[in-house]
């Protein structure tokens, strides 16, 4: 395999505007099987979360009719054990899922990238100390540590997001450290150091932009894991407080009415499953699009 990257695409990438670059990235993402499905799912969930107030047929927290009604024209997905509209609660649940995914992963990125950059750039004892801390957090089962932190901080969405953010921090710290270790040896970093740039500038201006691609890929996969973790915490009663709707808390209450209204357990689960599936597929697409080795292997 002599020439694997289309020169026109390469030139367009280098010389193009931001919009052009995005369209090249999108076309690369779409070459991976299932990535298109992922983009559609993520777009639908984001749209539902953003417009929940306008598109929800009913108030999600107010009983509207008799309890445990099956799907009908009036209540497309039926009503729950308190007579609330299930469709409206699922639409509002999308808002919680997006919030939990984005905020907890944002928290993990902020702390993890900082740790990874410092460990990778400075090395030596700083690396040893920070990485032992990261190893310590990694040695706990994710859900068990998230439970323990959420338990200590108390019930609530913010506390659940902090708990998930803490347990996801090691993934980003390890990823960035590994990349920073190799980037710090590059000539342009040496040049910046020779020109008198301070370490924090080298880390933020020279190293960070070069490790962004794997962070983006990891983020999309971790948002999916964060949504699953939030749903698990809510299912165990440590997520969002009632009467607000989250997909996990909906399953928690629906589980008790499995014989009378099995559909109640079905719809929130489908929402979690499809969203996580879509994010994973988008993540796979991004991974292939942003990693030249995988892209070339895919073409060969």
């Amino acid at each position, binding site marked *: 395999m002599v020439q694997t990257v289309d020169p026109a695409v390469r030139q367009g990438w280098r010389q193009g505007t931001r919009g052009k670059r995005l369209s090249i990235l999108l076309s690369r993402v779409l070459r991976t099987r299932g990535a298109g499905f992922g983009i559609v799912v993520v777009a639908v969930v984001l749209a539902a979360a953003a417009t929940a107030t306008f598109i929800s047929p009913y108030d999600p927290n107010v009983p509207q009719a008799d309890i445990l009604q099956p799907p009908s024209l009036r209540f497309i997905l039926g009503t729950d054990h308190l007579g609330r509209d299930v469709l409206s609660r699922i639409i509002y649940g999308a808002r919680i899922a997006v919030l939990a995914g984005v905020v907890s992963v944002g928290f993990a990125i902020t702390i993890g990238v900082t740790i990874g950059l410092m460990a990778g750039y400075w090395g030596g004892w700083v690396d040893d100390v920070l990485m032992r801390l990261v190893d*310590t957090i990694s040695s706990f089962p*994710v859900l068990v540590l998230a439970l323990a932190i959420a338990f200590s901080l108390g019930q609530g969405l913010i506390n659940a997001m902090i708990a998930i953010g803490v347990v996801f921090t090691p993934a980003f710290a390890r990823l960035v450290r590994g990349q920073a270790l190799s980037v710090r040896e590059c000539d342009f970093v040496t040049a910046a150091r020779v020109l008198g740039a301070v370490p924090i500038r080298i880390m933020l201006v020279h190293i960070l932009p070069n490790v962004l691609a794997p962070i983006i890929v990891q983020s999309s996969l971790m948002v999916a894991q964060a949504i*699953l973790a939030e*749903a698990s915490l809510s299912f165990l009663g440590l997520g969002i407080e009632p009467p607000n709707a989250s997909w996990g808390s909906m399953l928690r209450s629906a589980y008790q009415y*499995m014989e009378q209204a*099995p559909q109640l357990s079905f719809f929130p689960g489908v929402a979690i*499953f499809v969203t*996580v*599936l879509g994010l994973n597929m988008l993540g796979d697409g991004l991974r292939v699009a942003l990693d030249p080795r995988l892209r070339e292997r895919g073409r060969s």
Partner: protein
Amino acid sequence: MTQYLLRRLTYFIPVIFLVTVVVFCITLLLPGDPALAFLGEGNINDKVAYEAMRKELGLDQPVPVQYAKWLSRVVQGDLGRSVRTHEPVLEALGARLPVTLGLATMALGIALLIAIPIGIISATRPNSKIDSIGTVVAIGGVAIPEFWLGILLIYLFAVWLHWLPPSGYTPPSAGIWPYLRSMILPAVSLGMALNAVTMRQTRSSLIEVMQQEYIVTARAKGLAEKVIISSHALKNALIPVATVIGLQVGRLFGGAVVVETIFALPGMGRLAADSIFFRDFPMLQGVVLIMAVAVLICNLLTDLLYAYLDPRIRYS
């Protein structure tokens, strides 16, 4: 190998120490006073009893002293007493450990029985029907929440078909068949994600090994494809699979919390969930500590196994 083992142990010991610090800190973050939790609502205004309880729990001393005393008790096997039942935490954990171990073992067994054969077929016959089914199962398996899969399985096999009990635990002493009947649905729920990860890993590592030069040589010598796969390719392809399985132990313990809650299994995961519900922090602390140490030991054993199977690791 001995040098490698010593090197790994020098890394293992400080991490174990830091794990105990984190577990101890869980109680420091708790809102409210642990002494009040031990006293119960009836004695909440009894100041003498409150001060005595603070002294008994060592809460009147500085945090580092509290930690040192707690650690010295932990290394002697004393993890404290449950706030709710007042039974020793270690005894409670010991009683529930076999349930969780049985569940995790069954989940692992089911995952491997499905994942490895399908992974091999997918790798050797890419784009076949089995490969397509395997890909769908692998992609879906990592996206499906354990608790939702558990609910679906209960509805299908217990509520609708009446083939299996919806929940509850039958110990092996009551007969192997009733035990298996009570564990099969939880084990499938817990093993699905592991199955997906193992299947993907088996497929990709076998594809990679099949492109190696020694496999080309074996083909050139005229060996049958089955012999090449079973005698030459599989041994090397399964090394990374063993590592992936070892690293999934934490996931099994985490999943056990929700799976045991749904299926009402009296294991460590359910104990963790109940501890949260009843705010039983010594019990939760004990569960978290034991699970973290178990994960660390499994990671260490995985590393050693990997180094044993692949000598390049221990000489690097």
